[in-house]
């Protein structure tokens, strides 16, 4: 388990007291709550492609795929998170803010992504996929490769 910085901006009392033009975002992983706070907009990968959420979005439940989450914070700054598989829920509270809850296997700020580890993982996954061995778990290796590549990509954006 990697200890890391809590990337939380100002805490809110939940979505109810939020102005209409902001999102309340919570990203939860089995280890901890990775992010909880306000945002202007965000974009995350689902199995059917990228989804963008703006305040006022209709309620929705969807699956999250491995990829990069892009979020615009209230001060206009962009932040990124590396997400792995999970679920995303949008809750539209009439007349109030919109809530986005992402419940994923892991979510990392690119700053804490371990570049070397990701490179090693990518290499390992490629090797496994190259082996024509029936014993390997193909989807699992592909998933691992995808995760590693996304982490590397995130590192590049950050730099």
């Amino acid at each position, binding site marked *: 388990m990697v200890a890391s910085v809590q990337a939380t901006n100002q805490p809110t009392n939940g979505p109810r007291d939020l102005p209409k033009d902001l999102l309340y975002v919570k990203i939860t*992983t089995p280890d*901890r709550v990775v992010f909880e706070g306000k945002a202007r907009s965000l974009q995350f990968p689902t199995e*059917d492609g990228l989804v963008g959420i703006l305040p006022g979005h209709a*309620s929705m*439940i969807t*699956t999250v795929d491995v990829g990069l989450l892009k979020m615009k914070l209230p001060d206009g700054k962009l932040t990124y998170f590396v997400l792995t*598989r999970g679920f995303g829920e949008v*809750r539209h509270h009439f007349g109030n803010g919109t809530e986005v809850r992402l419940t994923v296997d892991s979510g990392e700020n690119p700053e804490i992504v371990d570049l070397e580890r990701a490179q090693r993982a990518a290499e390992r996954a490629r090797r496994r996929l190259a082996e024509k061995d029936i014993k390997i778990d193909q989807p699992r290796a592909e998933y691992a490769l995808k995760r590693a590549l996304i982490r590397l990509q995130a590192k590049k954006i950050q730099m």
Partner: protein
Amino acid sequence: MANIRELKVRIKSVGNIRQITRAMEMVATTKLRRFQDRAVASGPYSEEIEKLVQSLGASALSGDQVPPLFQERAGKKTGILLITSDRGLCGAYNANIFSLLRKVMGELKERELHFYVVGKKGYSLVQKQGYNLGAYLSDPPLELIGYRDAATISRFLAEEFTSGKVDELRVVYTRFLSMAKYQPTEFKLLPLSAEKAAQQDDGGFQSHPILEPSQDVIFERLVPKYLETRIFNLLMESLTSEYASRMVSMKSATDAAGEMQADLRKVFNRARQERITTELLDIVGGAEAIS
């Protein structure tokens, strides 16, 4: 007098035992805190998953295509997930689990039992009694299990169920109620209960959400996660109970040793006084005889 020397040795050894049990109590306390932190850290995740299951469950489970982990089967094979401790010196913790287990086994006489065991104590019981061992889940040991390991265990158990090795899975574990109260509990984990999953919550937001890609696909992904969080929570509850039990029993051992030491000291002092008195009497008697 030999008696006095013996008493002295006993007082000292009781004191040593007291020191040891006291140290063990302190270790149990700090470990307990650590496990509680671990359980608390994954709490929000479990809650989110549960909420999702609840908001989808009612409609996803009413169709005729129920996910495999919810399907009731008629077979005779019952798996029992037995969660015990690796180490002893935790009071009646394991004994309580075993007595519940005996009761449960009495009720399940007709069925073919397979044991899935966590913890050395449970494993040695199963071996000794010659029960049918399905798997001994010893790696990693319970104390080091994190969420990801629980997920692995969960996948394994789900596989045992869907492949037909067992037709239902019951859990015998210890429920953690409070620091002073933990209760051996048994319930049916698999097939998952549709009733429990379908409890609707109304969060006061726009319901009937858009479902992408589709309700069935999302629910199918969700079910294994749901099982993972439940198994992780079971393991953490058992572990917390174990350490709470260990802490309490070590505390009472320390207290008992303290009392014993005080009692022994009293006896010792009395014996010493007696010896002084007899010695004095001897001296006085001797002096009188001379004069």
